């Protein structure tokens, strides 16, 4: 038994010592930079939310780890943020919603008004859509159609007036899959968010 243990240590001591030292190195780096990484993430999300809710002075979590419908009937947990204006009144809500795009997962930051009746629009948190086609979802001609649109069911149309603000969204030319993915993300998430805000009594008036 002892000879086996001796053999094991003789054969693998370098691996054991190196694993410990390399692990320590990673732990030190992580401890030194994890706060900065978390700060970067928070700043990015805050920046994206602030650009959508123009009256927002600060954000606070309204519903922590709310369940939103994901792909294949699964649910995804996300925080719903409440935007507060300078007087401390609710200026709107914002949250992260995701869905499957043409190439990869699309993550959007979506914002709605305080009554959850109108959309403030969306910003792209992450996407790998085709350059020159699907990534045009970031362009104003597509994204501006959502600003001020009703929070009811959105419809995708191929031909129409992109300047008209209603529940009909004109698709990106040559990127129907990406356009459909964005519409699906909205339709799935907004309904769920609205219901959860109502349940928590966070929507004023006839928010539904």
């Amino acid at each position: 038994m002892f000879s086996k243990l001796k053999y094991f240590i003789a054969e693998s001591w370098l691996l054991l010592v190196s694993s410990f030292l390399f692990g320590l190195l990673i732990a030190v780096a992580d401890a030194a930079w994890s706060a900065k990484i978390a700060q970067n993430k928070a700043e990015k999300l805050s920046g994206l939310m602030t650009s959508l809710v123009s009256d927002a002075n600060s954000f606070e979590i309204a519903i922590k780890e709310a369940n939103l419908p994901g792909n294949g009937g699964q649910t995804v947990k996300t925080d719903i943020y409440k935007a507060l204006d300078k007087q401390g009144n609710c200026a709107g809500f914002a949250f992260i919603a995701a869905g499957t795009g043409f190439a990869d997962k699309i993550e959007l930051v979506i914002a709605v008004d305080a009554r959850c009746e109108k959309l403030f629009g969306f910003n792209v948190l992450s996407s790998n859509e085709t350059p020159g086609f699907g990534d045009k979802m970031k362009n104003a001609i597509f994204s501006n159609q959502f600003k001020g649109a009703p929070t009811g069911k959105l419809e995708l149309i191929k031909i129409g007036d992109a300047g008209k603000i209603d529940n009909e969204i004109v698709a990106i030319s040559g990127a129907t899959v990406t356009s459909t993915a964005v519409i699906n993300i909205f339709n799935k998430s907004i309904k769920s968010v609205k219901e959860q805000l109502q349940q928590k009594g966070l929507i004023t008036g006839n928010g539904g």
Partner: protein
Amino acid sequence: MAGESSVKINYLGALTAGLWRENPTFRLLIGMCPPLAVTTAVKPALTMGLSVIFVLVCSNLAISLMRNLLKPHLRIIMFCLSIATFVTICDLYLRAFAPVMSEILGAYVPLIIVNCIIIFRAEACASKNDVWFSILDGIGSGTGFTIALCIMAGIREILASGTFAGIAVMPRGFVPWAAMQMPVGAFVTLGLLLGLASLLTAKKAN
């Protein structure tokens, strides 16, 4: 005296071999994932190149230090362990201090772990040579790789966006070639550059 000069030549050779004679991208055709994936613009390509230099130098240094203790059955696992450590540190650094670049490069920074160049240099050089030689080899190979990435990225960015490192270089009215930003652009550019590299090598040999 003769021995001293031959040692000097070797050190210089370690530093310069990766620039052209053993350039990982144009001559050895190894580590081809980043040249195809992260060369849509110069800045991310440069960031990737610098990350690879850091990982190559650190892993070569670590492996060279332990080269006399490496047993055959532990060799590959020790290479992977040291490479993964430095890639993780590099990834954390980028996420903390260059979040925009980290986001653009995405999964390709963690994927440096499986980059052939690093494991190849560990096996071919660092596990057989002293520390200084291994460090110089890492700098040389990494620089050669970075230059190759930047050449590809420069061509693609100019043709796809009319800019070089974000600075407009094409005349007004230039129509961007969207295809150069897509995978097809990477394959075409790489193919043409490999053809050019072969042509230059053949001419030199003749």
